[in-house]
Structures are given as C-alpha cells and as structure tokens.
C-alpha cells in the first residue's frame, strides 16, 4: 500500500468530522438571515471555540482509554477564578492568566495522579474530583459576577484585520503549541500506546505512566484555556452546575463525532475540534430554522444518541462473535 493510503486510513475520522462540519456550516450560513458574513462567522466561531477547547481536553484523556467527567467543572472553576484574577494592568493580567492556566494544569494533574498512581477508575475519580472542583468554583463565585480585562477580552474575541475571528487564531495557536508537540513526543506516543493496549505498551517498556499523566494534566490545561475564553466572552464568572455538566457531556459528543475511539488509542484532537464545531453548528441549526428554543436540549440529546450509535456499525465487520466482548 502507498503511504498516502495509510495516512488516509489514519485520518479518516478527522476527515469525516471535517466533512460533516463543512456540510452543516454551509446549511447554517445559507439559511441564516444575514448570510455568510464576517459577523456570523465570528459569533459562530466564538461559541464553537469554547467547546473545541473542552473537547480537545477530553480527547487527550480518551486517547489513553480513560474518561474525564470533570472537564466541565475545571472549565467552570477556571472561569470563576479568571473573573477574579484576569484584571488590572498588563502585568497583573498576565500573572492572572498564568495563575488560571496553572490551576487548570494542577486540577488535571490531580486527576492524573489519583487515576495513575492511586490506581482508581477514571470514571469514579473524575466524578468525585469534579464535585470538588465545582465546590471550589462555588466558593469563588457564590453568585455570578466579577469582571475581566476588557481590552484583552475584546482583542481575543474580536476579528483580526476585520475578517478572521481572533478566537479561531487562538485555537490554532493552542493546537500548534500544545497538541502538535504532545502528539509527536515520546509522551504522546506513550499515551496512544497505553490506550491501544496498556499491557503490550508496558511490556515494550513504553513510559505509560508518564504518558498518561501528561495527558491528564494537559487536559486540565486545555479545559482552563476554555474557561479563560468563557470569561472573555461573558465578562463574568458563574458556577452553574448545569452548564458544567453540559460541557462535559458535549465534549464527549464532540470527541465521538470527531472520530476519536472511546476505547482509546485512536483519533486526534484536530478531529475533536471539528466534531465540536460541527456539534455546535447542528445545535444552532434550530435557530436559523425558527424552532422553539425549548426543543434544543432534546435535539442535541438526539444528535448525541445518534452520534454514539454510529459506532455500532463496526459490529457488522465482526467475524467472530467473541469480539463483541472487549
């Protein structure tokens, strides 16, 4: 087989997610009353980027065959923290951003430490740590409020050269700075290997523990970047339980749509980003077709249900029935 075929097989999920997104976005903009203008794209990208960051975070953990049900809560916690710290002069704001990102990294590292070195199951661990993170968020912001450095916020949510949404550029920068180096490093390979077959990776001397730990910690960092952007969009911090849960849920949906295997070892954060953008666009389709917004939760739930059921098609390829049971 030629090289490009291997590449195609590896990127199939990502390309499919990209295709779904393009189709959905075309439908969206062609039915939008304002049409395909810079404003529409800016609003859509600002909404989509939030989920994209959280979905990237989820991808890192899912690749190791784990799951992080606390991403939404880290997202809320960093949002509440940013509404206190990212304010004031340039230096203060910069320190605030560093503190917020550091907090996210720490939250992810705690998850990773408990799962890897404490040897607890990721589901239970992250549900429990999620409760802790939500509690801290509630301590920071019992009521919605706070403020943010508005110059920075406007710069990162506005448009570059009047055309390109700045949030998309930020997303691209994060991909280049966090995802690309990680996925090409030894640790990134180890995370993939651990997700694909932990036993085989262990036997081959792959540093699975460090790889998984790095994945969990970076997931916290990416969720924190998402939380920071939420603060930039809303100018406030709010510890809303339902919103944190929704982001966790949607991140899983985005990951699945983006072709990342929930059994680990397969997929990329790029796919998850397109999955997230596609999921957001699908959710917003209701608005351009003038449906009652009450239907949106049901609509998104059904999309999620369909997206996760698509994985069942793999069952048709199973030759030996014993392969049903992993």
């Amino acid at each position, binding site marked *: 087989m030629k090289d490009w075929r291997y590449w195609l097989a590896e990127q199939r999920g990502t390309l499919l997610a990209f295709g779904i997104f393009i189709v959905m976005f075309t439908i969206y903009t062609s039915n939008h009353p304002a049409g395909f203008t810079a404003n529409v794209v800016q609003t859509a990208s600002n909404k989509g980027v939030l989920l994209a960051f959280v979905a990237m975070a989820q991808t890192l953990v899912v690749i190791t065959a784990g*799951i992080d049900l606390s991403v939404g809560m880290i997202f809320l916690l960093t949002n509440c923290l940013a509404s206190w710290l990212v304010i004031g002069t340039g230096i203060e704001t910069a320190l605030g951003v560093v503190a917020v990102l550091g907090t996210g990294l720490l939250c992810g590292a705690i998850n990773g430490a*408990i799962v890897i070195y*404490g*040897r*607890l*199951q990721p*589901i*239970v*661990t992250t*549900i*429990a*740590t*999620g*409760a*802790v993170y*939500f*509690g*801290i*968020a*509630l*301590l920071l912001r*019992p009521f919605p409020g706070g403020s943010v450095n508005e110059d920075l916020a406007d710069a990162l949510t506005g448009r570059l050269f009047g055309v390109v949404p700045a949030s998309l550029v930020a997303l691209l920068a994060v991909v280049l700075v966090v995802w690309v180096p990680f996925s090409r490093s030894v640790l990134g390979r180890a995370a993939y290997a651990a997700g694909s077959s*932990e*036993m085989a990776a*262990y036997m081959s001397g792959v540093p699975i523990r460090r790889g998984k730990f790095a994945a969990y910690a970076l997931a916290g960092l990416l969720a924190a970047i998402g939380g920071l952007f939420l603060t930039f969009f809303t100018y406030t911090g709010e510890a809303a*339980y*339902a919103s944190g*849960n929704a982001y966790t*849920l949607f991140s*899983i*949906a985005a990951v*699945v749509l983006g072709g990342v295997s*929930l*059994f680990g070892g397969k997929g990329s954060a790029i796919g998850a980003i397109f999955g997230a953008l596609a999921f957001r666009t699908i959710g917003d389709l209701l608005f351009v077709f003038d449906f009652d917004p*009450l*239907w*949106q*939760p*049901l*609509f*998104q*739930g*059904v999309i*999620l*249900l369909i997206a*996760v*059921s698509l*994985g*069942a098609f793999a*069952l048709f390829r199973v030759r030996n*029935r*014993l392969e*049903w*049971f992993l």
Partner: protein
Amino acid sequence: MSETTVGGIAGRMPKFIRRADPAVLTAFACIVLLLFVGSLYSRSFLSPEYLLQQLKVASFLGIIATGMMLVILLGQIDLSVPWSVAAGAMMACAAAAYGPVGVALAIPFGIFCGVAIGIVNGVGVAYLRIPSMIITLATNAVAQGLMVVYTGGFSPQDSATRAMRYLATGFAIPGVPNAVVIWALIGAAMVFVLTRTGFGRTVYGIGNRERAAYLSGIDTRRVVLIAFAVSGGLSAFGGVLLAGYASKAAQSMGDAYLLPSIAAVVLGGTSILGGRGSYLGTVAGVILITLLQSILSVMQMPEAGRQIIYGVVIVAMLLLYGRAPASR
C-alpha cells in the same frame, strides 16, 4: 470469594467475621465513627427519632442505589439516573392530572417511563455494544430534552397523588416509615435475586468475564438488557417516592442522586469493574452517605463545602480499599 482455609488467629474467629468483606467492615466502622462525631456535635444525634428520620431519607437513595448496584456488578455504569429520577417523578405527577384512571396508574406509569429509559440503555449497551458510560449519558440528555419540552422549561404544576404521598411519608407499621419498609422489601428481593437465582449468578459471572459467561451458554445480552431496565425502573420509582415526599416533581430533583448512588455502591465494596460486591455493603454505603450529608447540613455547611468534602471523602475512602492491582 475468600473461602480458602485461614490459619492462625483468623481461623479461630467466628465465621461471620472471617467471611466478611473488609470493605463492608470499613464502611460500617465509618458509620460508627460518623455517629460518634455527630453525637459530640449534638446530643439529639443518637435519638431514635433522628436516626429513623435519617433511615427514611436514606431509603430514597437506597432504592436508587439498588438499581445502580445491579448495573455496576455487570461492570457497567448508569449515568442516566438524574433524569430517570426526574422523569419518573414528573410523569407520575403528570398522569395524576388525567382523572381517576390517571391517579390509579400514576405510580406504574412513572416506573414504566424509567424502565423505557433503561431499555434504551440496555439495547445500546448489550446489542449495539456502545460503552455504557456514553449511551447512558446520551439517554440522560434525551430524557432531559423530553422533559424540558413537556414542562416548557418550568417545574410542572401537577402534584403527587395521595398514594405516592402515603408510600413516601405514611406509616403502615406504627413507628416505621413506609419508605423504609419499601427499601427493606426491595433490598430483600435484590439479595434473593443476587444470591439465590440463576439470574443473580449470571450477573456476577458477566461482571467477572462476559466472554466466559457467553461461552457457558448464557444469553449475556438479555441479562444486561434486563439489568439496565431494572435500574431505570428503580431510579424512576425512587423519583416517584421523592415526588410523594415533596408532594411535587421538580426540574433538577435527580441531580443530587447520581454521585451519591455511585458513591454508595462503590464505598460499600462493590468493584466498579464488576463481578464483586454484596448488597450489605451497598446498604452500609447508603447509610454512610446519608449520615455524612446529614452531619454536614447539621453543621450548616454551605453547598460548596459539602461538594468539596463529599468528593474528598469518596476519593480518600476509595484510596483506602478500592484500588486496582498494580500492573507487574
């Protein structure tokens, strides 16, 4: 099961201590510790009325945790509890608005809605082989969507029927709340099913190794489907009782039961990987969680502190005895 011969001091201990699961013993020890701490804080903590009241509050969680335990024993998880509870409560109250027939069918209809959610979960997990964590999250979202559309985004105005209120708050036996009696009945049925029937043995078998259970000629997919349906039904029944307790249903009434029900099962020594665990442990876990909640609210801890303590306690207790074996 550790029924191998134990020599030395342990060999001379009474049989029931030798056979007891260390996790269950730890959970009961923690209950005693919590009662002790509580009695230091307030004299009335050990009064029979207060303890009975706690048992009544615990019974709602206990019923929901029973279903959760069945699913966890299979090595799966049911994250659709929040909206199964809410759907059961809302649909039971909604049925009550349709005349005398509706009132009579309110409780069965609520449970039926939970069973329906459970069947969707079960089909997804057993036949489509979707990871349970994912499909149950998805059905939870769909159930939420349906309820939001149905109620228009507000808490429904229909109130609970008299039968629901009687089941949740009445006293059929003097001194013992009905909710506790119901929990005891459901618990006894669960113990019987798990230890005395083929279905129960199959559940443990699938939890240990589904492939082996399948090769032994068991229709494992049907068992998984039934377990999820039962879990959904019990969640909804818990919701029906809660609606009777509060005399109406509310939007997010189930949110407070997901983490506690998983925590109760896992703290009771049931392995989250499936195949291991006893109902006695779940009972201990439920009482432990309820007492912890009660002490925190007696101390007037705000919601934020409660969430933090909750998460920390669960992780700490699991680190004590819920760890997976090291890979060597």
